[in-house]
């Protein structure tokens, strides 16, 4: 009997092993290993070949001595180019700036929205949140596309302003930094509202009542009670917006002007236009270095929330 039990538990353990191993191996092979390859190729040299990079490791056969040597070539020129060329530094600074403005705009619109939903009747909260999440289900590309018709010269805003007599000619907002801010805020807003709502909803309303009973004005009790308690939501939402926004490609490509340089666009152009895979890899590694602190922090926050449950 005990042999049977141990046999079964071994099967159970074995089954557990399979359950863990399948996604584990998949992620190792298709998520972790690719980064190592990118890292390796960022030290390679661009050559005209298929694939267009020089191998890092080569076996050199010395016929005279009859020996074989292992040669490892690490080429740092890609990184020197990244730090030496203004284009890349400018693109990095621009990406951080645009992502910060986007995060701020999302917070400015998203916080009052999340607050209002959390203060609504309990039966209305679900549908109101559903309305925030719903646009997320429609295609990202199509939502960006929708803004082109609104922001372009002779577009919806331009025509509206003209018919109101506020402007005399067409107004072109498209192909500017502002168009990128609007488009990115629009796309990332649900990511901000979601974590904010879940912290604000859990907030105990008796705390605010206590503050009011003690003579605290609503605005002050918001600043001293609600805001500090919703800080985890603010942090999570900001990270969820900021991190992907830094590497964003589609929005600046479609809504931004030619001078709206962002690092995602630079990477894309190095890869597709210049076909310089090693430099594109270097740009990717540099972008990762820029994001590694916020990503680690995000995982830390996620992990803490998980343990709190």
């Amino acid at each position, binding site marked *: 009997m005990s042999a049977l039990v141990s046999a079964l538990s071994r099967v159970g353990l074995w089954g557990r092993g399979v359950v863990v191993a399948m*996604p584990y191996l998949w992620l190792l092979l298709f998520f972790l290993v690719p980064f190592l*390859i990118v890292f390796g190729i960022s030290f390679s040299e661009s050559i005209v070949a298929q694939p267009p990079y020089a191998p890092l490791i080569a076996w050199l056969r010395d016929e005279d001595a009859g020996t074989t040597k292992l040669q490892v070539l690490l080429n740092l020129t890609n990184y020197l180019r990244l730090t030496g060329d203004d284009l890349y530094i400018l693109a990095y600074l621009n990406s951080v700036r645009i992502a910060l403005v986007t995060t701020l705009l999302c917070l400015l619109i998203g916080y009052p929205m999340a607050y209002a939903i959390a203060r609504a009747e309990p039966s209305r909260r679900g549908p109101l949140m559903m309305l925030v999440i719903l646009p997320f289900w429609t295609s990202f590309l199509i939502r960006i*596309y929708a803004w082109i018709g609104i922001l372009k010269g002779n577009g919806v805003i331009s025509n509206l302003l003209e018919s109101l007599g506020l402007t005399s000619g067409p107004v072109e907002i498209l192909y500017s930094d502002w168009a990128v801010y609007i488009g990115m805020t629009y796309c990332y807003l649900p990511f901000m509202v979601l974590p904010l709502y879940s912290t604000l909803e859990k907030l105990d309303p008796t705390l605010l009542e206590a503050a009011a009973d003690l003579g605290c004005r609503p605005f002050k009790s918001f600043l001293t009670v609600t805001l500090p308690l919703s800080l985890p939501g603010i942090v999570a939402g900001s990270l969820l917006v900021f*991190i992907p926004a830094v590497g964003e490609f589609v929005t600046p490509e479609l809504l931004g002007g030619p001078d709206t340089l962002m690092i995602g666009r630079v990477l894309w152009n190095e890869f597709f236009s210049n076909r310089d895979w090693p430099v594109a890899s270097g740009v*990717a590694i540099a972008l990762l270095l820029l994001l590694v602190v916020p990503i680690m922090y995000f995982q830390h926050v996620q*992990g803490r929330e998980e343990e709190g449950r």
Partner: protein
Amino acid sequence: MKRGGFLSWVLWFGYAFLYVPIVLLVTYSFNESRLVTVWSGFSTKWYAELLTNEPLLEATALSLRVAAVSATLSVILGTCAGMAMARFGRFRGRTLFGGMITAPLVMPEVITGLSLLLLFVAMEQVVGWPDGRGVTTITIAHTTFTLAYVAVVIQSRLAGMDSSLEEAAMDLGARPAKVFFVITLPIIAPALVAGWLLAFTLSLDDVVIASFVSGPGSTTLPMMIFSSVKFGISPQINALATLMILVVATGIFIASVVMARQDRQRKRDEQMAIQGG
């Protein structure tokens, strides 16, 4: 009172910001004029043109196939991952595993796309597979990045679920596999559906990763939309967008009705169990 006024104003503004662009997009798909933003009369001719656009229909079929296969794969793998994170306690390499699950959620798409392409190229050199790039590589790439979303959905559902039912079944001698299929799976089924739909829409939406890992002859629908949008707006894209929104809205509506009905059924069952006991 003033505060309440401010808050409802904020909500109206927020929802207008979210929905006016979509409403305008749909409205102008019925515009007769080729100039998308100048209204000249009602017409459905752009929809008729869509149906005769052969490359577009092919790209749509390809995208739907990739989305269905990768969503199914990522639900299978994501459920395993969610189970491992929520139920298996501490195991060796759990930290790395957790990191690999949450990192893709925020990883910029350009990095994911580039790194997967370089992997496929390197694999082709070393083991001869995958032979060139196309549907297979896009499906693998989409499975990888949607897997993270599914895992998070399943994991949070499992964490919120009462595990006493599973423990009771285990105490009564059910084997882990049986417990999973008979008890756990039916309870988390709504999360599986939600995860599948999420993975499906994310795959159907992706242009950046697909551009990196696709090959000649495997242009997905978003890639096609992206390249035509770069040349400016056209009413045909509006019509296509409207159809896509319609499909998504229908899917979500059906899913939420089904889930609400299941929820009611479950509550009724619980009520009966309490009364019976």
